[in-house]
């Protein structure tokens, strides 16, 4: 590697301003992707500084490197396997003691390290006295003071990175674990050193420490080695749980010895935060405030976005019409107009929702309230097999399932997150409402409101029951332990929230967009082929498929027309109504459609109810499938979600229709 290239890994606890620092350093030159093989997000960026090309890799925020979570494994594997030139740990100056725990673990990895002491202004404001030089001496690494949100200390940090990279010798401070454990470490290290390949790849002391700490990930790392058996027999003769506790103890002991020398009066209370929390998580006020904030977030995400959505939809309808007029022959005009422009349009129509959602989520998260929201509702969510952080995604689901599923990213535990993603599609989104309005309005005129309310309620019940069911089967077990930091309240910055919004919004377009577009084109092909048929008619492929699956849907009371329109519903639920209009030959005249439905001898109120239940529960739309694939990173889970939805929809619609028939 050329001498003027430097790879820097950024690490640190959650909520210490790591993302802000990363954005300040790399500006717009960022690349967002995934870590190989996992769905953990990987961000890297490039900074040209004083003739150096500095590549910055933003590691997932973690409290520790003990491999409790996937994030921790990703972070430490990067440091030990990829060996970045310099590791920068961002430390929250107002919470040095807890942050140092990660420092003690990072030191063992043998990399050159720098501490960025972030938000030191906040610490000084409240009266802490930070002794930076002493800190450098004790930790044996440079410490740079930064205020990432105000761009303070960044060039000093980069200068230090360059200086560290050029340093020939690297002397790390070692954590001493006391005589008994030290002798074990030496024993294990000795065995490990027999494997030359292992010795050249990893710091052996670190491997030994991790093994004695009961780290199963490391056991797997050495499983292929000839010395694995010998290591296992040493470990099995020890009570690892005791060692684990002793070592954590020792780390904290060292920290509590170092800490008072680095910082005076640093144990000040988080007074402002505490005062805010006296209101925000108050026994009586907590829930009303929470509900009001959630209602506000929901309204902004959907109502505020509505006019923008309408504008985008209008633009794409106009483009489609232009295509119809100006493109020849007709089939090509239809492909471009209805297939491609329609598909792209459906991708873009979600953009206002998604952008506003991520802006608000970032505001809620950066302010510290998101953790409080989880704290407040956890009890209810835990009862149904989920956890506090599952609430916001489920709430957003009433607007649109796509942003709702994207919002599950704040759930760290993979099982909890999967369970949430799997149940969100049962929450009745806005696009399903036109179906209910048409059928409830037509067949239950007086009680339409009650019927629609019951449908929404059914969606919630199925979501809750599914969460319970998943927790006893595929995603067996209780929700992960809820051990959550409530970070101090901070004023969120507009810049960060806009950046967050932009990153996630553009990610949606790139990743989910392709699947949505592909799905739309497939449906178009089915409706337009074979050659020369009328679009979406009885003799088109979709009409033929509708006829073919009709026997399957017959027990639910559906004829072929409804079957076909449900197929169209895969593209987007609102199309169900429009395609029924086409199939009944009335276009988009709602009154004519109501009359035709009432006149249809196959349609009863019980059929309408069965249809509403089915529409509520079967796969929401191709956009949701796209986003499930993107967020789970797994076609298996995506397929499961679709299949499960169809089965549940069929069963409940069957019960409604057959049960209703018996009663009448």
């Amino acid at each position, binding site marked *: 590697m050329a001498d003027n290239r430097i790879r820097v890994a950024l690490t640190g606890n959650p909520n210490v301003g790591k993302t802000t620092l990363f954005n300040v350093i790399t500006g717009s030159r960022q690349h967002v992707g995934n870590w190989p093989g996992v769905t953990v997000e990987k961000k890297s960026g490039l900074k040209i500084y004083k003739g150096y090309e500095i590549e910055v890799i933003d590691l997932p925020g973690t409290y520790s490197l003990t491999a409790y979570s996937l994030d921790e494994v990703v972070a430490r594997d990067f440091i030990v396997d990829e060996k970045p030139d310099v590791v920068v740990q961002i430390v929250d100056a107002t919470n040095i003691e*807890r942050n140092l725990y990660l420092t003690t673990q990072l030191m063992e990895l043998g990399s050159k390290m720098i501490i960025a002491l972030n938000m030191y202004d906040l610490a000084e404001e409240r009266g802490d006295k930070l002794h930076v030089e002493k800190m450098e001496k004790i930790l044996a690494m440079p410490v740079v003071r930064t205020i990432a949100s105000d761009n303070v200390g960044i060039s000093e940090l980069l200068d230090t990175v360059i200086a560290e990279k050029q340093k020939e010798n690297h002397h790390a401070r070692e954590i001493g674990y006391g005589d008994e454990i030290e002798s074990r470490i030496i024993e294990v290290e000795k065995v490990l050193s027999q494997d030359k390949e292992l010795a050249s790849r990893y710091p052996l002391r670190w491997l030994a420490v991790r093994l004695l700490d009961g780290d199963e990930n490391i056991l797997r790392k050495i499983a292929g080695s000839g010395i694995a058996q010998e290591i296992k027999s040493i470990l099995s003769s020890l009570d690892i749980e005791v060692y*684990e506790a002793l070592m954590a103890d020792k780390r904290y002991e060292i920290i509590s010895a170092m800490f008072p020398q680095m910082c005076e009066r640093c144990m000040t209370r988080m007074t402002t*935060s505490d005062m805010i929390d006296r209101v925000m*998580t108050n026994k009586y006020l907590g829930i009303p405030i929470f509900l009001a904030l959630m209602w506000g977030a929901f309204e902004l995400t959907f109502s505020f976005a509505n006019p923008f959505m309408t504008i985008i939809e209008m633009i794409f309808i106009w483009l489609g019409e232009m295509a119809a007029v100006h493109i020849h022959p007709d089939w090509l005009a239809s492909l471009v107009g209805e297939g491609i422009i329609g598909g792209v349009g459906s991708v873009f129509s979600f953009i206002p929702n998604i952008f506003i959602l991520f802006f608000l989520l970032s505001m809620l998260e950066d302010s510290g309230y998101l953790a409080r929201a989880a704290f*407040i*509702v956890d009890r209810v969510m835990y009862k149904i097999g989920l956890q506090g952080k599952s609430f916001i995604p489920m709430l957003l689901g009433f607007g649109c399932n796509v942003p709702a599923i994207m919002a599950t990213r704040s759930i760290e535990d993979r099982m909890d997150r999967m369970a949430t993603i799997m149940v969100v599609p049962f929450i009745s989104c806005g696009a399903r409402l036109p179906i209910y309005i048409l059928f409830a309005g037509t067949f239950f005129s007086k009680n339409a409101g009650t019927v629609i309310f019951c449908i929404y309620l059914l969606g919630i019940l199925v979501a809750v029951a599914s969460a319970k069911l998943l927790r006893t089967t595929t995603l067996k077990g209780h929700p992960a332990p*809820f*051990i959550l*930091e*409530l970070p101090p309240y901070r004023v969120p910055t507009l810049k960060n929230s806009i950046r967050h919004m932009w990153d996630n919004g553009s990610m949606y377009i790139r990743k989910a967009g392709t699947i949505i577009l592909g799905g739309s084109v497939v449906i178009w092909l089915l409706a337009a082929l074979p050659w020369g048929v009328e679009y979406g008619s009885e003799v088109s492929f979709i009409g033929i498929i509708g006829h073919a699956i009709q026997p399957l849907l017959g027990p639910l009371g559906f004829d072929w027309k409804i079957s076909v329109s449900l197929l169209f519903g895969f593209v987007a639920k609102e199309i169900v109504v429009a395609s029924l209009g086409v199939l009944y030959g009335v276009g988009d005249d709602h009154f004519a459609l109501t009359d035709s439905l009432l006149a249809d001898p196959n349609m009863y109120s019980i059929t309408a109810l069965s249809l509403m239940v089915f529409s509520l529960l079967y796969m929401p739309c191709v956009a949701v499938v796209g986003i499930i694939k993107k967020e789970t990173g797994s076609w298996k889970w995506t397929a499961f979600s679709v299949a499960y939805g169809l089965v549940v929809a069929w069963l409940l619609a069957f019960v409604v229709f057959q049960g209703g028939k018996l009663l009448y």
Partner: protein
Amino acid sequence: MVECTLNDLRPGIKARIIKVLAKGTVRRKLMDMGMVPGSEIEVVRTAPLGDPIEFRIKGYSLSMRKQEAVNIVVETIA
């Protein structure tokens, strides 16, 4: 000085951790967050619905469910 588990304490009470009874990953996570024997911990408040509980430990706020708090043996300090 009364020995009890963390879920028994009322808001405002300070205690010292004696033992962490949790096993496996929960134990590890608790230790990572500073729940080690000897640490001082204070109960700040319970959530509006009665669970989880908010604590202050090592100068920051941490919340956990009662079922996790049951596994932490503490002694109260005056």
